[in-house]
């Protein structure tokens, strides 16, 4: 039995920034050999993104980059140089899967597009993932995940009401698309096993992200109704939202609560040692109708409670509740701890730093973070020597020519 699910799978990874590297991370953490091809001439922008070790920027000091690139090997090739492209091509027969995430014309201009590369390995599976897909008038759109989250509709449904726009943090769509790309690549790998046939996969992050808005889009096309921002209001739960608790150490604390039905409503009141004879809260439809009033009422009750203690109390009564956790809280969270979520890995330059773990656990072939992210060009010597049988002199020469760079 294999120790890891994807032992023996080879991935050549030309991707950068978010979606591509997170996709190949699934492979790397599950035992596939993933070689990331980078270049000092045009470094992955995440390498210079915060947070940095000791808050000091540096090409090998970014946890932003490190988090997305565990368990991979890293080599450098400046693909703007013909010689570097020839070396990259010599690695293609090794690769079951190639992933790239440049704007569409880059790989074509370098002669590293699927049509060319499949000549070197006919059953190659290749994924191109970019903002808006390989074709169409906006294929060359330059963007990043935050903008994509606005373009694909997530910003618009984030706010307190009409006219308010308070987006989610970060490049939200970068954390939707990788599941679709990884799932598709794994299915394509299985299809190749059965049929011998490889293929090319064109993934638009825009199109993948919109799978998470499907009900609203279907509704619009059918009826013209546009889903807008509506705070925390829900058509199913009331109360439903975040309620202020007692401050701790001068920081404000909040608890999320969702209540459906009379039984939970009464349980919530009991847990809060409160009662209500307000007719507006008499039954579930009335409570949903009067959500603003109920928010005020519940907020007045939670204000004196400690968020953690109140969570335990409400949950013991069968009411859905949890503290609204900040970035310190999630590292001290008992449930993530019990799941073994956080990993501290030893990085060549950063030393020990915190990494997000896997979001699932497998019983028989569990993946794990096998190593910290590579520093730039970390595995050059090993990969070029072992895979391409280049001599130490040849490697040195290529470094001098800034081909390996």
């Amino acid at each position, binding site marked *: 039995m294999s120790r890891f699910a994807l032992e023996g799978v080879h991935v050549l990874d030309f991707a950068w920034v978010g979606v591509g590297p997170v996709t190949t991370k699934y492979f790397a953490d599950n035992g596939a050999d993933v070689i990331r091809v980078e270049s000092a001439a045009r470094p992955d922008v995440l390498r210079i993104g915060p947070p940095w070790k000791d808050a000091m*920027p540096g090409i090998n000091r970014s946890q932003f980059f490190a988090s997305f690139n565990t368990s991979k090997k890293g080599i450098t090739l400046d693909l703007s140089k013909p010689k570097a492209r020839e070396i990259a091509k010599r690695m293609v027969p090794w690769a079951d899967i190639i992933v790239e995430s440049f704007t569409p014309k880059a790989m074509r201009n370098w002669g590293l597009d699927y049509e060319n590369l499949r000549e070197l390995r006919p059953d190659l599976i290749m994924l191109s993932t970019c903002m808006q897909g390989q074709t169409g008038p906006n294929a060359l759109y330059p963007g990043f995940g935050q903008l994509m989250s606005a373009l694909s509709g997530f910003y*618009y449904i984030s706010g*307190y009401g009409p006219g308010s726009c308070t987006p989610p943090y970060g490049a939200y769509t970068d954390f939707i698309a990788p599941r679709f790309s990884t799932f598709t690549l794994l299915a394509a790998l299985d299809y190749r096993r059965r049929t011998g046939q490889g293929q090319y996969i064109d993934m638009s992050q825009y199109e993948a992200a919109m799978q998470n808005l499907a009900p609203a889009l279907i509704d619009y096309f059918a009826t013209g109704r546009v889903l807008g921002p509506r705070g925390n209001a829900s058509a199913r739960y009331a109360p439903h939202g975040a309620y202020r608790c007692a401050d701790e150490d001068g920081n404000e604390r909040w608890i999320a609560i969702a209540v459906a039905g009379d039984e939970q409503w009464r349980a919530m009141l009991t847990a809060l040692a409160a009662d209500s004879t307000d007719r507006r809260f008499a039954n579930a439809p009335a409570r949903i109708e009067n959500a603003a009033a109920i928010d005020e009422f519940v907020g007045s009750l939670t204000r004196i409670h400690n968020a953690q203690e109140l969570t335990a109390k409400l949950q013991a009564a069968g009411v859905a509740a949890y503290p609204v956790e900040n970035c310190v809280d999630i590292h001290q969270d008992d449930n993530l701890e019990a799941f073994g979520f956080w990993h501290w890995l030893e990085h060549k330059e950063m030393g020990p730093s915190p990494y997000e773990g896997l979001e699932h656990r497998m019983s028989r072939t569990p993946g794990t973070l096998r190593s910290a992210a590579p520093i730039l060009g970390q595995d050059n010597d090993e990969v070029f020597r072992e895979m391409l049988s280049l001599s130490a002199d040849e490697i040195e020469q290529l470094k001098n020519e800034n081909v390996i760079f």
Partner: protein
Amino acid sequence: MPSRLLKGLRLLDLTDEKGALCGKMFADLGAEVIKVEPPDGCSTRRIPPYLEDIADPDHCLYSIAYHAGKKSVTANLATDDGRALVADLAAQSDFLVESHPLGYLDSIGLGYDTLAKRNPRLIYASITPFGDTGPGKDYAWADIISWAAGGQMYLMGEEGKPPLQMSLPQAGLHAGGEAAVAMMLAHYPRRIDGLGQRIVVNMQACIVWTLMNEQAMPFLHGSYLTRTGGFVGSADARRKMVYQCKDGHISTLIAGGMTFGNSTKALIEWMRENGLGSDWMRTKDWISWVPGLFMDMTEQDHKETEELEATIQRFMLTMTKREIYAQGLKRRIFLAPVATAADIAADEQLKARDFWTAVPHDSIGRTLTFPGPFAKLTATPIGSTTRAPRIGEHSDEIYRGLLGIAPERLNKLRAAGSI
């Protein structure tokens, strides 16, 4: 036609809103997905909003979207016969995904250990709000709970106002996608030894992953972010991400460095053509201006940023989202409209890629337009899906065809309330 990628594989879908997307993804790639629901329908059939506000299961938009391509059988898990039917289906399935309260399926003989005895090939994924071992493993759940527990809620909204969830709950979708990935990961080693395994998906962890670069801030920078409305960055080093325009909002970000500097320059040049902006904006070396979002911004950085952002804001108010986006594309400026469903439906790029897919719904007498495939594949393209099944629509087909149950016995099971 769905793709042929996963043709011949069968997935049993026992999820609610914590995982319905999983089966949809399998169905899109050609697997046979059998949704098992109670005789009166799964809870996902009663999630508002409804099409035309007609509150019946066939008009439930969530169900329409995420049960498309699936088959539906009913089985009453409160009865011995109902449970036996599901066990028999699991014996002939490659995958099973469920999101019941932890331990429930074990308690009625449909847990992994029991089912794997009969079918060692089975890959069985349980979607859980907080994993299967921690103090919260039996916690009551709603989507907003995962949003809060995973740290995203804390960052959404404005200072002085409550933290926010999106208006279309997301945690269940992340978890469904994660279950799909994990099951396909487990499928790969199964080809060698024929053995399946148990998977536990953790929804809280799925939301933590959406925090991008934020989780390590407290350790490396000694600080963490709070809600800053339409800004990114910390309170003392923030940049505006959202600008009002004539008919809504657009998003852009001014920054320097190799990646962003040229975009910032192009935006400044565009404003200059319209008589806006100051000289320093045009002469500044944006390529080497790299105060990151967490680096100290000097007094001058703050002053300049504020002036530039105020200028951009004035400029954007003179145009519509569509006008701004068109210029952004032309001038290669990092910007995007804060798109509504209407904007997305009108988008030329999606039309040019034939993204939208018509799905006939004879169940409600109309054809609906769906978001198209999540990927374009050369050898095994994902075509249009089929409409969500009615509750129990395929009970006869599956129970007779797959399990070989005689019609008379099916009638008896129906009469007894097991189907």
